[in-house]
């Protein structure tokens, strides 16, 4: 399956440095995004280590299927999903070790979100509050759930979504790479269909834009690079309070198909 993609990252209008990092291997449809955190330049270091380690482990497994998994295999998921989880566990160890060894990098951490598409199946793995969305038939769906303090409270019914959106604690994460010696990523699998658009993004995008705005861009702009540019432009217009990153991935033969057309027409007419 051939996918087109556009990957963009921007410092935004408030921060002085860009602590987001993107890596991808389009030949195997692997896309990785990380948002680093920590003092001085350590956020940049953390996100780069995280994306490099994740990419390297997956690519190594492509040429050496006997490469051992880091951590316990997850039941009921594909080999690619297990490899992606393994890569993220490894990335955690890399960031954790670096932060322990270098006093300037003490306490640094990173989120990570990765998508690997093999045939019709997509593996999604993440730690933190960077997200993956899917646009299918005009409807945007968030495929990841944030590992944040407020999202956790919403899931447990202790807070409403409205309260979460207003909370002063939105920036507090429950899980991140580099903080503990071990971390467990969430892994999901999805079917990839013609016409699907996948978006990986950092919280710099989702704090500035609503789901409707994101869906509007992904629906109206066909070229993934242009769509990524437009998302970043809109997030900057909305304030650009943080680093902004977006990877837009789209089925290359984006023949919408009769069902997609009917679905879109049906949705628009409501």
């Amino acid at each position, binding site marked *: 399956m051939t996918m087109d993609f556009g990957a963009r990252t921007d410092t935004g209008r408030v*921060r*002085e440095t860009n602590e987001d990092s993107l890596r991808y291997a389009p030949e195997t449809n692997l896309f990785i995004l990380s*948002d680093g*955190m*920590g*003092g*001085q330049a350590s956020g940049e270091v953390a996100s780069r280590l995280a994306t490099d380690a994740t990419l390297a482990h997956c690519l190594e497994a492509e040429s050496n299927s006997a490469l051992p998994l880091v951590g316990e295999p*997850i*039941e*009921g*998921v594909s080999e690619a*999903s297990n490899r992606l989880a393994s890569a993220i566990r490894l990335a955690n160890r890399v960031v954790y070790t670096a932060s322990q060894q270098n*006093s300037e990098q*003490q*306490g640094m*951490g990173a*989120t990570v979100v990765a998508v690997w598409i093999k*045939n*019709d*199946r997509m593996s999604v793995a993440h730690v933190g*509050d960077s997200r993956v969305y899917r646009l*299918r*038939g005009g*409807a945007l*769906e968030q495929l990841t*759930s944030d590992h944040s*303090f407020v999202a*956790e*409270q919403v*899931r*447990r*019914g*202790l807070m409403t979504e409205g309260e979460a959106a207003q909370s*002063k*604690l939105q*920036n*507090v*994460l*429950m899980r*991140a790479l580099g*903080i*503990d010696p071990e971390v467990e990523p*969430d*892994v*999901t*699998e*999805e*079917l990839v*269909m013609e016409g699907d658009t996948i978006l990986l993004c950092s*919280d710099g995008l989702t704090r500035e834009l609503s789901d409707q705005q994101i869906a509007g861009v992904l629906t109206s702009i066909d070229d993934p690079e242009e769509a990524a540019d437009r998302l970043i432009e809109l997030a900057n217009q909305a304030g650009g*309070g*943080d680093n902004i990153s977006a990877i837009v991935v789209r089925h290359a033969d984006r023949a919408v198909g009769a*069902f997609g057309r009917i679905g879109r027409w049906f949705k628009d007419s409501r």
Partner: protein
Amino acid sequence: MSKLVLKFENTVLKEVAVGAKEVSIGRSPDNGIVIDNPAVSHYHARVFNEEGRLMLEDFGSLNGTFVNGQRVRMVSLRPGDSVAIGKHTIVVTDSVEVHAHTLDNVQSKPAAPRINETVILETRDRREFLQKVAAVGESAQVAPARLKVPTLVVLKGSTDQTEYSLSNKLTVVGKSAMATVKLKGWFKPKAAAQINRREDQSYYIGAADRVPTVNGTPIAQPTKLKSGDIIEVAGVQLEFVIRD
């Protein structure tokens, strides 16, 4: 004598003088300056006088202490310095100065650059939080002791088996090679619908090339399944069953 002014978004919360006795800063109530925020460690840092100099020491806190935007471990402080801990700011003032003037200065200063930075809940706090919410009675749903694997029973239609165990995170209903529930027949879609097991171990059915119905109603978005639900899609009827 120096003073520490604790502020949150330009509101002064507290002023503490630093004399011979050190002032500790942290989330625990026994600190001299208490900052009740999960991003702040229980014992985060301290400010003390040493040989006439005012010193700040971070106790190796997870999310750090920043002076004028730089993460610090141990530094000497001067009047006008801005110490950021979590989203709070502690401004160092010399109490000899005219008080109002000092506060004016402080307020016109730009906020510490790291104030909206993403931070991480410390391991200990994370555990405490999870225990606390577990006590609210949600634990059974959030973390079931053992997952019961549901079954899809074929009630009507042509498929390669009569039932399917949903042991995978993703189950596809369709004609494609990756489909678990394999549909037979000429005009069947490659992927009619999908069922996902989410992190909370519940199962959701979603549309693919077709929009399935659950108990007769077409689904508008991924829909959580419960035992006994009847799914219809692409000419097959399936019952979602969780057996005891």
